[in-house]
């Protein structure tokens, strides 16, 4: 097995630059998820690795081979498409055998490879069927089977779960993780869904507008987002961001005059410096406390066990989302006390970049 290295990849379509210098190193056997909003270039990046798009400049190295100029079939990759892209006139067996047949592999070798993949994916019973007779989840499995049969060095997945319903998506997510544990093949997985990214990835690459915003383990990105975009992209509901200015005694003044305590920063801020304070909806502490601020509840989204409570400040200029256990204690219009534990705050400068806390 082998790692993958993308070096300063750039790609333009006409005058539009879609990839603006992307470098990623995927270690051998690692499950890397490229995530980002639509139009960020993540699919183009994946297609470039597959060889379906030609990079304007930059290199793609698989193992120790520079594959930048090689045809897709020579790169040692297999790809699973969002639409599955099964061959409709061929049986499941022939769909999975197609690549080996093209490579003129030995009949027995083909049979062994196809049956092995079918066993891994639990689709032995479907081998004689045509794709039209399969459900969405089964088609997805066949598409993955076709990839496994090729015994690739790298698996490429292009939004493979987007076409499935929510229930199946959760199950297939689990199966992807299971499959990766079983096969241990280096994997590059593209999605716009942050939940898939958080649950599947060893490492997340967050892409925006053709550039990498941050790379790291899901935990790293969640706990120490490099900027406001990353902070708000991961986690639902989104992180609350409130504009403030640095005040005396390690505090910050919000726009409406309220003051809250800040965590100790690696580089202390001069009084009056503008900054943004971020806090995740489940980090807000509710209840009486010496430091507590008073809010009124504007709106409650009840999700069953949990509720997202939208809080308004005194003058209504600060809106915060707060995630609580829904035990019927709260109602719209109620007044509520909230504290912001300094250790759980995220601070960003005027350019939206993270301000390091002491110890980070």
């Amino acid at each position, binding site marked *: 097995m082998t790692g993958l290295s993308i070096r300063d990849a750039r790609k333009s379509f006409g005058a539009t630059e879609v990839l603006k210098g992307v470098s990623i190193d995927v270690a051998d056997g690692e499950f890397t998820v490229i995530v980002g909003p639509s139009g960020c270039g993540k699919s183009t990046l994946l297609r470039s690795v597959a060889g379906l798009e030609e990079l304007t400049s930059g290199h793609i190295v698989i193992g120790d081979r520079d594959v930048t100029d090689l045809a*897709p*079939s020579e790169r040692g990759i297999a790809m699973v*498409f969002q639409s599955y892209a099964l*061959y*409709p006139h061929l049986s499941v067996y022939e769909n999975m055998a197609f690549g080996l047949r093209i490579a003129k592999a030995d009949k027995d070798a083909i049979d062994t490879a196809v049956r092995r993949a079918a066993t891994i994916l639990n689709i032995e019973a479907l081998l004689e069927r045509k794709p039209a007779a399969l459900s969405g989840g089964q088609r997805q499995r066949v598409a993955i089977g076709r990839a496994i049969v090729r015994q690739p060095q790298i698996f490429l997945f292009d939004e493979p779960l987007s076409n499935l319903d929510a229930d199946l998506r959760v199950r297939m997510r689990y199966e992807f993780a299971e499959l990766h544990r079983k096969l241990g093949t280096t994997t590059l997985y593209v999605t716009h869904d942050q939940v898939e990214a958080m649950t599947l990835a060893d490492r997340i690459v967050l892409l925006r507008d053709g550039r990498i915003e941050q790379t790291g383990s899901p935990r790293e990105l969640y706990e120490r987002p490099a900027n406001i975009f990353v902070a708000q992209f991961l986690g639902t509901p989104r992180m609350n961001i409130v504009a403030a200015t640095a005040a005396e005694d390690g505090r910050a003044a919000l726009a409406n005059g309220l003051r809250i305590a800040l965590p100790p920063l690696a580089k202390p801020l001069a009084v009056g410096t503008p900054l943004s304070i971020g806090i995740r909806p489940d980090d807000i502490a509710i209840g009486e406390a010496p430091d507590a601020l008073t809010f009124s509840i504007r709106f409650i989204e009840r999700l069953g066990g949990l509720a997202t409570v939208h809080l308004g400040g005194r003058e209504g200029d600060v809106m915060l989302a707060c995630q609580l256990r829904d035990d019927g204690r709260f109602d719209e219009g109620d007044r509520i006390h909230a504290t912001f534990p300094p250790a759980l705050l995220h601070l960003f400068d005027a350019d939206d970049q993270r301000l390091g806390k002491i110890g980070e």
Partner: protein
Amino acid sequence: MILRRWSVTLLAALVALLTIAPLLWMVSVSLMARGEAAQFPPPLWPASPTLENYRELFGNFGVGRFLFNSILVSTLATALALLFTIPAGYAFAKLRFKGRDAIFRMLIAALVVPGQIGMLPLFLELKAMGLVNSYAGALVPWLAGIFGIFLVRQYCLSIPDEMLEAARIDGATETQILRRIVLPILTPIIVTLALYVFLSSWNDFMWPLIILADQQLYTLPVALAANSRQNVQDYEIMMAGAVVTTLPVLILFLALQRYYLSGLLTGSVKG
């Protein structure tokens, strides 16, 4: 409700009868004795059915030769048309090359020019190439019909790119993709196109009349027309000739009708 369904069936049957009546009478007359159909009022059935007209047709008139010419020209026309039209339509739909859309727009624009206008220039061209009065000359207009290219292209557009990319990743060359992935998917439209070209070239009268001077090379419609000038009064022989002309394509069409219809329908539903 039942009444309405029956009335629809009855109406359809009536229309079908009106359509098929001339064909039936054609067969009937072809089996009549010489001069029988010229009586007034013309009889519906032959008094004593005879194959004399067919004997005359295949014997003295030598229709076997023309039948052979027609089968040869139409079969070759169909094969060549498929050979050139399918790859062209596929390329216009799925391959990236410079000027693709501009060339395609030009082709489509050329569709509005009636074929008859092109006949004289085409004739002169073929004359220069020395193809006048040959089977090859009769085949040329069928080689790459714009309508066929258009048909194949439109159908190819409905094939998702990802499927072709999957095949590319699987290591298939462009020719293998065309042969092993695209062609099987195109089957209905290929049958439709083949039938269309075969029927059109089989029934074509104008072009073979212009390009073929030698009687030995005549296709059925041209030969029958030439014959009708000589035997104006012989309805029975004429009808026997018409049967020989119509029957093969009728059988072909009925045999392939299922695919033909599914081709037309798929195109429209997916389009």
